[in-house]
């Protein structure tokens, strides 16, 4: 898979097509959000019902794993789902490539997930309590905890990148070999794959963050109970 080409330079920075596509997606989402939420009322119309249904579905999914404060995680996890759905589906638009086929984007998202795990964990109970969970149940497990953090972050980035890049490559190969209209089923598979990968990425991020909060919280609740 070729890296996304540089479209233009902004000073010393080379702006790649993935970044431009991401900006476009951001613009579309911003405008759509602005327009859709312009006239929210007590009696919802069809668009408001769809919007509320989507937001409540995200909130309920988060609450299933982290029922204490689902709205705390809603902006980050919800944005992951919304952005990844749109970014993954951007590949089926003629002339566009999914930005998630760029390892730089998936790595950036994986790093953000990695950082958010620690951010929410520390925010929930403080540095000491959060770092203590790396030493539980035994300090001997600290290397394994660190390895797990690293490997799951890399896996997060590579999984999404690999799936989306390979899907576009498969569609391109089928188009070259079989000709026109034959890749249509591949495109339908693209849609399914895009939704599934977005869900997997967001759900894994949610699981990591929730486990990061609750892993250091459970021992403390046990300690409070015992005292």
């Amino acid at each position, binding site marked *: 898979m070729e890296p996304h080409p540089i479209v233009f330079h902004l000073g010393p*920075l*080379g*702006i790649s097509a993935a970044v431009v596509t991401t900006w476009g997606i951001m613009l579309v*989402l911003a405008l759509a*959000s602005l327009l859709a*939420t312009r006239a929210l009322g*007590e009696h919802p119309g069809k668009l408001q019902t769809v919007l509320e249904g989507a937001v409540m579905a995200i909130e309920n999914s988060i609450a299933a794993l982290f029922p204490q404060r689902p709205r705390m995680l809603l902006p980050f996890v*919800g944005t992951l789902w919304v952005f990844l759905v749109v970014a993954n589906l951007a590949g089926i638009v003629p002339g566009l490539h999914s930005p998630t086929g760029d390892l730089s*984007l998936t790595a950036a998202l994986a790093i953000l997930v990695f950082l958010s795990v620690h951010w929410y964990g520390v925010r929930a109970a403080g540095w000491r309590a959060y770092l203590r969970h790396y030493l539980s149940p035994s300090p001997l497990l600290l290397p394994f905890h660190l390895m797990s953090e690293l490997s799951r972050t890399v896996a997060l980035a590579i999984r999404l990148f690999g799936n989306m890049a390979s899907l576009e490559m498969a569609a391109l190969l089928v188009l070259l070999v079989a000709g026109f209209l034959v890749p249509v089923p591949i495109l339908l598979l693209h849609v399914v794959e895009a939704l599934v990968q977005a869900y997997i990425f967001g759900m894994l991020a949610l699981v990591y963050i929730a486990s990061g909060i609750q892993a250091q919280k459970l021992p403390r609740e046990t300690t409070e109970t015992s005292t």
Partner: protein
Amino acid sequence: MQIDTTTFVLQLINFAVLVWILQRFLYRPVLAAIDRRRAAVEKTMGDARELRAQAERLRAGYEAQLADWERERVRARGALESELATLRAKGLADVAQGVERERDRHAALAAKRETDWKRETEQQALDQAAAFAARLLERVADGALDERLAGVLAEDLVSWPDGRIAPLAEAARAFGGRVSVTSAHPLPEAARERLAQALAARLGVECRPEYAVDAMLLGGVSVGVGPWVLQANLRDELRVLAGGAAHAG
């Protein structure tokens, strides 16, 4: 498969900006709308619960009132039944008294009817006996019987007390001694004389008898002094017999 640093950093920034954008323009307004609706629904539910509580209180009040009414109804029914029992007993007593009175009245009526029947029967018997005696005496009576009865009257005048004779004497004086003497048969002269003397002696006035004959007397005489009439004949005796027997009965 390589990571471009510039793209990596820009995507970090891009996603952070996108989180802010969606939080600002999507999640916050939508969640606020949801919260407003939930608050409205909660308020409606609260109002409904309050209404339900009010309805429950009203129902409890109504049920208590119904219970009071039921107790009042039972009490009133008991009082009514007691009053009805009293009235029924009184009515039955009144009816029994009425029946007893009616029975007594019927018994009295029956006794009176029986008495009346007896008296009528006796009267009829006496009348028949009197009629029979009258028919018999009518055949056997004659002037001698009239004379004897006139003698009996003269003898009785002598034995009467003065108090009984006084009004006769007064009437005789008021009529100037005029006395009517009626007999069933013509009286002999001797009988007339003896009767006139007895009257004059007892009444104390000179009597002027006026003689007459009335066969209805059957036998004997009837002497009239003013408004007074002295009967010594069979007809009046039979009447006295019948009337006296009826009166005695």
